[in-house]
C-alpha cells in the first residue's frame, strides 16, 4: 500500500486516505475555445491517456484530509513516488527531463511554449 504525502497540508498517509484521480495535465479544450473543437480533439481529451511503464504524472486528492487536489510523479513499475507538487504546477524540471514517450513530448511542448512551472 502506497504512502502518499499531500503537498498542500503536509499530511502523509496510506493510499486509502487519498483518492487517485488519473493522469495529470490533461487539457480540457472546451475551457479555452469551445466553439472550435474537432471530434478527434474531444476524443483525445476524454479517452486518450498516457500510460507509460515507468515515470508517470498523475492527480491525487487529499480525500480524507484537507480535501485538496495535487499532482504526483510516480514510477508505475516500482510504484515509488518521485515528487508531489501543486495542482497548478508542472513537475520539477529534472523529472520533466527524465520523462519518456508521450510525456517527453508533452513537456517539451510545455517548456517550449514558455509556460513557467
Amino acid at each position, binding site marked *: 500500500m502506497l504512502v502518499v504525502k499531500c503537498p498542500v497540508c503536509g499530511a502523509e498517509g496510506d493510499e486509502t486516505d487519498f483518492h487517485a484521480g488519473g493522469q495529470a495535465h490533461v487539457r*480540457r479544450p472546451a475551457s479555452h475555445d469551445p466553439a472550435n*473543437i474537432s471530434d478527434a480533439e474531444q476524443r483525445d481529451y476524454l479517452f486518450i491517456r498516457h500510460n507509460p511503464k515507468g515515470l508517470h504524472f498523475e492527480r491525487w486528492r487529499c480525500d480524507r484530509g484537507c480535501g485538496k487536489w495535487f499532482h504526483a510523479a510516480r514510477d508505475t513499475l516500482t510504484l515509488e513516488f518521485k515528487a508531489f507538487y501543486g495542482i497548478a504546477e508542472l513537475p520539477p524540471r529534472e523529472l520533466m527531463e527524465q520523462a519518456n514517450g508521450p510525456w517527453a513530448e508533452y513537456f517539451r511542448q510545455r517548456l517550449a511554449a514558455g509556460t513557467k512551472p
Partner: protein
Amino acid sequence: MSNKPYRLAHGGSRIDRARKVSFTFDGKHLTGFAGDTVAAAVMATGQRVLGRSFKYHRPRGVVGLGSEEMNALVGVGDGARHEPNLRATQVELYDGLTAVSQNRWPSLDFDVSAINNKFSRLFPSGFYYKTFMWPKRFWKHVYEPFIRRAAGLGKAPVGRDPDTYEQIHVHCDVLVVGAGVAGLAAAEAATAAGARVIIADENPLFGGLADIAGGTIDGRPQTEWVKEKTQALAEAENVHVLSRTTVVGHWHHNHLMLFERVADHDPALLAAGTPRHRLWKVRAAYVILASGAIERPIAFANNDRPGVMLASAARAMVERYGVAPGAQGVVFTNNDDAYLTALTLHMAGVGIRVVDSRARAEGELPNAARAAGIDIATSSIISAVHTSLGGLGIGDVKVAAYRRGQGRVISERKVECDFIAMSGGWNPALHLWCHNGGKIRFDDALQAFRPDRHADAIAAVGAANGTFELSNMLAEAHAAGEKAAGKPSGRVAPIAEQPKQKRLEALWFAPATGKYNEGNKHFIDFQNDVTAADLELAQREGYESVEHTKRYTTFGMATDQGKTSNINGLGVLAEATGKTIPEIGVTTFRPPYTPFSFGAIAGTLTKKLFLPIRRTAVYQWHVDRGAVVEPVGQWRRAYTYPRTAEDKHAAINREILCVRNKVGLLDASTLGKIEIKGPDAAEFLDRMYTNTFSTLKVGRCRYGLMLNELGFLTDDGVTVRLADDHFLMHTTSGGADRIAAWLEEWLQTEWPHYRVFVTPVTEQWSQFAIAGPRAREVLAKLAPDFELSNEALPHMTFREGRLGPYPVRVYRISFSGELSYEVATPANLGRGLWDEIVEAGREFGLEPYGTEALHVLRAEKGYIVVGDETDGTTTPYDVGLDGLVSKKKADFLGKRSLQQPHLKSTDRKQLVGLLTEDPNEVLPDGAYAVKEVKDKPPMEMIGQVTSTYMSPTLGRSIAMALIQNGRARMGETLSFPLEGKVVRAKIVEPVFYDKEGAKLNV
C-alpha cells in the same frame, strides 16, 4: 500402527511432564503433555501416519519442524469452529482438542483412494489435459465431479464462525521478522539505539533454532542468551514483542501484514472474549528480515515414506518434546549440520548411523560423531526405501556407493531402520524479501539463493541472509539493527562459539535401485505428489519455462508453497536440462508466507460492521411504524408503511391516493444539500449545469441538470438562490457525496480562479416533503411565522422562518405534481418536527408515504429519475429535456460531447410514455420492445421500459420507456415479447397526470 511408545524417559525442553493433556486424533482419545504440538503428541504414541497426499493418497508422516510442514495436515475443532489444513507441527496441544486427519476414506490407515498410487503410471503430470475429452458431456457430468470429490484436502466448517477477529495499524521504526538469535541481536541493537521496534515470530517461543543449534553466545548456552534477550525486549518500553505471529506479506512502501494467532492455543482466552486472530498492519521505516532458513529434503527413491523426516525436525522432536522419531535411524546428509542430529539422537539413546554423499566428512561435527562411535558412510546415498506395516512405516533402506554426478546405482547394501533424518542443506527463507521485488542471487557455496538487492529499506540477516556462522550472524544482525535505527546502540555485537562446519556438496537427486522412474518415485513436492520424473516430463513436452513446469506439474503450488520443494525442483531441472539453477530461474514468491485466515482479513468488519448503514434522524420512527425499509446507496429509507393485514401493493396505493387526495409526509432528508457561495458562484453553476443559474432570482428555486464530460446525465436537483452570491444545491440521495466532490474537483483543478466556496451540508438538515392538496393547511396549523398563500410563497420559491419553535427552511417544490412544501430543520430537531407534523396533519388525513409511492407519483407526472430513466448513456435530449440545455452558454460540462456524431444521431432512444392495450397489464421493468415479433429469438430490440407501475390515480398501468426514435412514433403500438406472451402498448406523451400543471399552482 506400531505400539511402541516413542516418548523418551528424559528430555523435552518444551513439555511439562507434570501436566497431562487429553485430546483426540481421528476420534481416538490420546494423551500428551502441556507444551506438545499435535505432531509430537501423536508421534509419541507411535503413530507415524498423520495424513495422505493429494493425488496418490500415499500415507504420510511428519516431515518438518514447524510452518514448512507439508504432509501432516490436520483439521482441528468441531462444527462451526472447525479449521482444516493446519500443520500438526504448529498446532499446540490443549485439553479437549480434537484433530482429524484429512484426504482419506474411510480411515487414515486404510484409504480406498490409495488405489491411485497403484495406477500412478497412468497419471503423470498433466495427464488430465490429455484425456477426459470423450464423450464430450462426460467432462461435466462424470469426470469432473469425480475429480472434484477426490481433490481438496480438509473439510470446510459448517455454519457461521462464532469467533471475533480484529486489526490494528501500527507504525514503527524497525520491524524485525523472526526472533531467532539473529532477530534478537538485531532487535537488541535497534532498541538500545532508541528505535521503536516490533519483533514478531511465528512460534510460541522466541529463539528460532537456537535450542537445537548448539554452541554458546557471550559465553552462555544459546538458550540462556535467548531467554535473557527476550526478557529484556519484552520489558523495554520501545519494543513490542509478538509471538505466534507470522509476518505474512511485504508490500509497497514497507507495508507488512502480521498475522497473530491470539487465542488458537487456548480456548479459555476465546471464552473470555479475546479476538481469535489479529491482523497487524505495520508500516515500518525499516525491515530486518531474520526469518532464518528452511532445511531441504533430498530427492531419493520413495523419500516420502512415513518415518522420513528433516534432520532438524528429528532433532527437535527429541530436544523439545522428548519424542524419538524411531528406534533405529539413518541420517542422510550432504552437509555437516545434520551430524548434530546424529549426535543428539545418539545421546538420547536412539540408534543412529550417518549416510553422507560427500567423499569426506571431516568437520568438527562429523569428527565428534565419529568419536561418539556413530557409524558414518561417506560417498554414500540411500538408494531404496522398503516399507513395513503395509506401507505405513519403514523396514529397511539400501545404502549405495555414490560419486557426485553419478546417475545410477552400482553397489548397495541393506540397512535396517525405522526412520530417516534427511538434510540436503538449508535455504534462506527469502520469501518476504521477494514479495515486493527484492532481487536474489545463487550462492554456490550454499547451493541456495540468497538475498541480493532490494529497492526498499530492508535488510536480511542471519540464516535468512545465508550467513550460517553464528558469530558472523550476530555481528551482521547487530550492525543491521543499528543501521535500521539510524544510531549507534552503544553496545557491542555478541560473540559466539560453535563448531566450524565444512562445505556441503550439491545433491539434487540420489540415484535409485533399479531403473530410474520405473517404479521409483523421487518426490520433490510431497503434498502435490510431484516427482523428479514429472518435472523432467514437463521439460520433454516443451513446458520449459520453470513457470510452465510449475503449472503443468503443480510443483510448488501446495499449501506449503514450495518451502521445501522449490530449490530441489530447480536442482532436478538443472540436472535434466544441463542448465544452471540461475538459468532455470525461480518461480514468483507471493504473499502470504504461510496461509492465514480470511476472518483476520475481514477483521471487525463483519455482520453489522461490514459496511455502514446510514440512518436519518427519523429512522427509528419509520421502523416503529412498521415501514419496509429499502437501501438507497448506504441509506436505509422507508419504502412503504404497510398496516396490519395490508400487503405492500395495497399500502403503496393507499399512500399515493392519500397524497393525491389529502396530504402525505415523506422523509426526504437523504437528498444531498450543498452550500455554494462566492462572487463567481453563479458563473460556476452555469458551468456545472446544462441550464442557466445566473439568471435565477434570489429566493427562487430552479431544477437543474448535470452531465458528465461524456455528455450523459449524472444528476439533477433543485437549486435555490439564497442571496446574490449564495446558492443551496440539492442533489439526488445517491449523488450527494459524489457531486460535492465533483464541484470541488472542477473548482480546484480547472477553474481555480473562481472565487467560490462549496460546503456540503446534507447531514445538517432533516428535510420532509408535505405533499397533497391539503399541505398548506397542515403547514398553517404548525404556526408558521411567514405567509403561506400562493402569492406570498408561490411554486418554486423559498422562505426561511419558524414553524412554532422550529427554525425551518421551506421550499415550495414538488416531485409529486401536487401542492408541496419541503421543510428543512436542523437534524437534531428533525424527529421533534416530524412528530409535530404528524400530529398537526392528523385532522387532514396526513399519512407518511415511502419511496415507492414517491416513484409512482412522479411517474404519473412524467418526471424522470436519474438512474431509472437514465443509465449512464442517456443525454438530456434522449429524455426530452432539450429545454433545459442552454443554447446560449458557450460552455458547460458535457456540452461539447453532446455534439459527438453518435450523441447527435437521429435514431437514438427517446423517452416516451406507454399505455398497454390491457389497462391491467403492467409491463415488467426493463422489458424490451422489438421491431418485429418472431417465433423465436433473436429478435431485433428497439428499446426498453424504464419505469412501470399500476397507477392508482389513473386506475390503469403506465410506463415510461426509451424507444428508438420514439418521439416520432407517437401513437404507434409496440410489442414486448415476454415469456409466453406478447404485451402490446401504445406510445404516448410521458406525462399521464395533470399535464397543464394546474395542481402545482394552487
